[in-house]
């Protein structure tokens, strides 16, 4: 049995045990009683379905987001897509160059997929070690692999497990980072769930997997939103699981009734505020009556169930006027289901929802023209497929547009750096350069959004924060070892930048290595790689020292302007640095290690330039 197969077998066993516990738990302590249980069959033992449907036909309907011409599709655009949609990804230079030679649509169809496993973007020799790549499965597999699985931070009911599992999943070379990027958008920025707002870890796992599985199927977006609205996680977070109609009186709160329209669908009731406030929201609160979230038994006691049940006993029994139409149904599932299918085509939702999503994902300040185009594209979509919409957007000049600027959040910046820095899965597993604790200190931890239901820290907020800048500075200076770490005898590991950096004429030439690193981390071409940047990067790569020290040891703190660096003496000095050779494949271990450390120094500098704090279109 191969190592991978062995892993699979162990994971399967762990899952079957967990399923048995879960089923027993439901049977013994389902708790809510009465009503319709719409708990889906737990299916993590089933390999992940690969939805390979082409969205080309749908994309053609979106004429306002027409695809770029093939001859303008290049490596730079591919890198931009990967940085934004895949946290930089683990894609190799060969993959990137290949995508640049394909047509934009063919390239995007390979890159942007919501399947948990996508061999196109994350090819793994021998296949993925996971069956379906859902967070629930990953939690169980990684928990079982921990030496003390009882205390594993990945366990389904551990207090921060969704964040731990999600972070690791983004850095797993065999999993699809695009799924996790869109998962983050949906569960941390759009239909937000917050572990600090009573929602349990188990509920978050279920919520995330259900959302992403529904999205991966290519379901209409209204169905996705509907599924979220009826989830145990949302019912717990907003507490409408306590909403009931009893003795002829509605008892409960209107919190989610408002946010269902506003946050989920983008309906603010702008055309008739009083109708929205006094009729739509109030009646939506009634439609949300008798959703129950019971307790289930787990190994350490009981927790709130990760599935909701609906009842009729305390449900508002009659039709309700919502969004100016009668909504019928015998329970919350029926009423909210009907409402969701209407809300997705509501005029305000058609106008606001696509813009709301793109603002959160890619373009916080879209131009008027871009907004008009996004709205029209969404309207024109016969089936509201988010996959088709995002694929079109990623190949359009609305995305590849110089007016667009997306500042990175702390989380995004750190993950992009980690994915481009760590070359092998072993390195990623042994040295977690992105820790959930650190992210929480900077208030950007997954599933603990700083704005509660309004989402996590925004890129613009990260950009405006001196503290977050100084922390990044600290990582590039005080914690420089994060970048320069190049060997570990205890685990017989050595960094090997030589395995990914291409040679020029049989050598690793400093200027070429510098450009390679710049493009790899910044995710752009070399347009911002000017003389100020080059002088330092060349010096660090060539000598392991900064430019000021190398140029004038007597005056190492001096700063040189672009004008200074244009002088012939500097030009000559810079040229000498640029043509230096690096010993990335030297047979001597120490020399090879030093060369790798210099690459790390250059990276520490590159990621601290302004261009690593945001993405231009």
């Amino acid at each position, binding site marked *: 049995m191969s190592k991978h197969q062995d892993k699979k077998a162990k994971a399967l066993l762990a899952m079957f045990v967990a399923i048995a516990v879960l089923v027993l738990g439901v049977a013994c302590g389902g708790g809510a009683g009465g009503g319709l249980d719409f708990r889906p069959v737990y299916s993590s033992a089933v390999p992940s379905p690969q939805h390979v449907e082409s969205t080309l036909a749908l994309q053609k309907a979106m004429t306002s987001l027409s695809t770029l011409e093939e001859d303008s599709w290049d490596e730079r655009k591919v890198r931009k897509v990967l940085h934004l949609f895949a946290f930089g990804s683990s894609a190799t230079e060969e993959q990137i160059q290949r995508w640049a030679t394909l047509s934009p649509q063919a390239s995007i169809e390979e890159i942007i997929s919501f399947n948990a496993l996508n061999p196109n973007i994350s090819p793994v020799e021998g296949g993925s070690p996971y069956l379906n790549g859902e967070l629930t499965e990953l939690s169980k597999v990684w928990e079982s692999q921990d030496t003390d699985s009882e205390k594993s931070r990945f366990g389904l009911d551990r207090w921060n497990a969704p964040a731990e599992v999600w972070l690791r999943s983004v850095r797993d070379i065999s999993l699809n980072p695009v799924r996790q990027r869109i998962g983050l958008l949906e569960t941390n920025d759009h239909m937000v769930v917050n572990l600090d707002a009573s929602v349990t870890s188990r509920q978050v796992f279920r919520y995330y997997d259900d959302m992403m599985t529904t999205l991966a199927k290519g379901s209409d977006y209204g169905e996705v939103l509907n599924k979220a609205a009826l989830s145990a996680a949302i019912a717990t977070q907003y*507490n409408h699981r306590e909403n009931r109609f009893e003795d002829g009186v509605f008892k409960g709160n209107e919190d989610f009734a408002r946010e269902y329209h506003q946050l989920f669908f983008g309906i603010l009731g702008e055309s008739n505020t009083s109708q929205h406030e006094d009729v739509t929201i109030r009646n939506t609160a009634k439609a949300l009556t008798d959703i129950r979230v019971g307790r289930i038994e787990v190994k350490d006691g009981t927790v709130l169930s990760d599935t909701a049940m609906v009842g009729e006993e305390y449900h508002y029994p009659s039709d309700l006027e919502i969004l100016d139409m009668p909504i019928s149904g015998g329970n919350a599932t029926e009423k909210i289901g009907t409402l969701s299918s209407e809300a997705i085509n509501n005029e305000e939702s058609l106008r606001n929802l696509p813009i709301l999503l793109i603002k959160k994902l890619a373009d916080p300040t879209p131009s008027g023209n871009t907004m008009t185009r996004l709205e029209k594209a969404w309207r024109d979509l016969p089936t509201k497929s988010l996959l088709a919409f995002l694929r079109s957007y990623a190949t359009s000049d609305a995305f590849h547009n110089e007016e667009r600027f997306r500042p990175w959040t702390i989380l995004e910046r750190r993950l992009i750096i980690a994915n481009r820095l760590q070359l092998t899965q072993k390195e990623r597993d042994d040295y977690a350069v992105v820790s959930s604790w650190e992210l929480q200190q900077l208030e950007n931890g997954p599933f603990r959004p700083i704005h*509660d239901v309004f989402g996590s820290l925004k890129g613009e907020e990260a*950009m405006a924060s001196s503290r977050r800048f100084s922390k990044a500075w600290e990582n590039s*200076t005080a914690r*420089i070892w994060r970048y320069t770490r190049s060997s570990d005898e205890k685990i017989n590991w050595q960094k090997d930048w030589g395995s990914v950096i291409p040679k020029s004429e049989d050598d690793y030439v400093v200027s070429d290595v510098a450009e390679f690193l710049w493009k790899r981390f910044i995710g752009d071409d070399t347009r911002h790689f000017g003389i100020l940047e080059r002088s330092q990067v060349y010096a660090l790569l060539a000598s392991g020292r900064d430019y000021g020290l190398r140029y004038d040891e007597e005056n190492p703190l001096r700063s040189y302007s672009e004008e200074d660096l244009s002088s012939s003496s500097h030009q000559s000095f810079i040229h000498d640095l640029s043509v230096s050779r690096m010993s990335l494949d030297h047979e001597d271990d120490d020399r090879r290690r030093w060369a790798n450390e210099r690459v790390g*120094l250059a990276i520490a500098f590159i990621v601290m*330039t302004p261009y690593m704090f945001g993405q231009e279109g």
Partner: protein
Amino acid sequence: MKMERRNFIKSTLALGATCSMPMSLRSAPSDSGGILIHLYLNGGPDFRQLLVPSSESDYGRIYWDHRYPAWGLGSRRGVDALEATMLEGGTDGTPFFIHPVADWLQSEWRLGNVAVVNQVIGSDKRNHELGDIVMDTGDPESSSGDRHRSGWGGRLAREMGQNVVSLASRVRQFAFGPSDLDPNSHDNRDVLSIHNMRQFGLYRPESLETNPSRGGYRESLSRALDAYYRAKISRLGNGSPYKAIGDHYEKLSQQGKLVRERLVDVEETLPLQQMLSGDLPVSDRGFARQCANFLDASHCLDILNASVFSMAYGGFDTHRDQGDRLRDRFQDIFNTQGPLAIMMNTLREKSPELRRRVTIMISGEFGRQLAANGDDGTDHGRGNSVLLIGDGVNGGIYGDLFPDEEIDRYEIRGSDIHGVTGIEHVAHRIAESMAPGSGDRIFQNLVSERLPDSSVLNFLS
């Protein structure tokens, strides 16, 4: 309008405090202008649970009939016992009680240092995002797409040629100044966002102080980045999306060093430190951190060049369990043992002149509905009160605290406080007190319909 004044008590206390102040404890800055602390309570704070009507009044009877669940009471019968724990507030004009934990607020009220401006309205919608935007921009015409416009705190600071210091975990829109290039956008060149005053600045290895040529990796990167940014910032002009990054470098490298040097000999305030270390209880350590930072900042006003401070406290969207949630939060903000009171009392003790310059404005995006919902909380409303605390405040109640017209509306589901006075008028008054003549430039959408009675703006001396 009903108003109470306690100027006599106030001036007597201030005089005494000044006389007893040791010279060495005086704050560094010598400027005499006002200092605004804008304390924003995220979520829509229910001030109707802070300032409470007597159950013996007509208003109070209907209030308690419909409100007791939001106080965590299982039945109306518990009201008398609860009321017995309330603190006495106003006794003339409109009598009211103060939440049982808010004893610092009561003491400031008695000193005449608290103004309560009622029926203030920001957005006429009940959604958080738009409510935030209107309160932060001070523009009632704002729409939900205006997240990138400047805030009135930032515009005020720009008028004064100063910075805004943001002590909150994220910089609120309130703090951003206007962009030079686009009137509908902001920039952050005037914003100093500070999480910990004592660590404000950029890491620099100590070894560089003694040996600037030291060749270690840390030293090399510190020199490389420092040299790079010194040359780079002039290249990151107003049109660059990366300008903010250059601004951070400039502020952290220049002001950071000075701030840390200034604070070396400044003693930290013990109770706040104990809260931060977990040795004293506090609901929100982040808020204790903000208060500690303000005290540190008060020693560095000349370095920071700031008179406008932005603070925030979250968790006021109390759709459920309102009684417990508000108690915890009011404890931090309005109790004598809470961080804010410790901050202000420390200032009074150690820097009374500075203390006299400080006005705290406390507000949130909207108020809440009159009656409790069915989940022991309250749902979104519109109108709300704004609280101002400070020695320079004309203490009293401005506008109707408990309007009679609300009595009949308690029965109607969804009723809320009618907004009468626009937030922009309240903020305009504050701006004028800090930078006379600036108000009309900072607030350009002032309409008289949102200020039917200008006497409600007499809350500042």
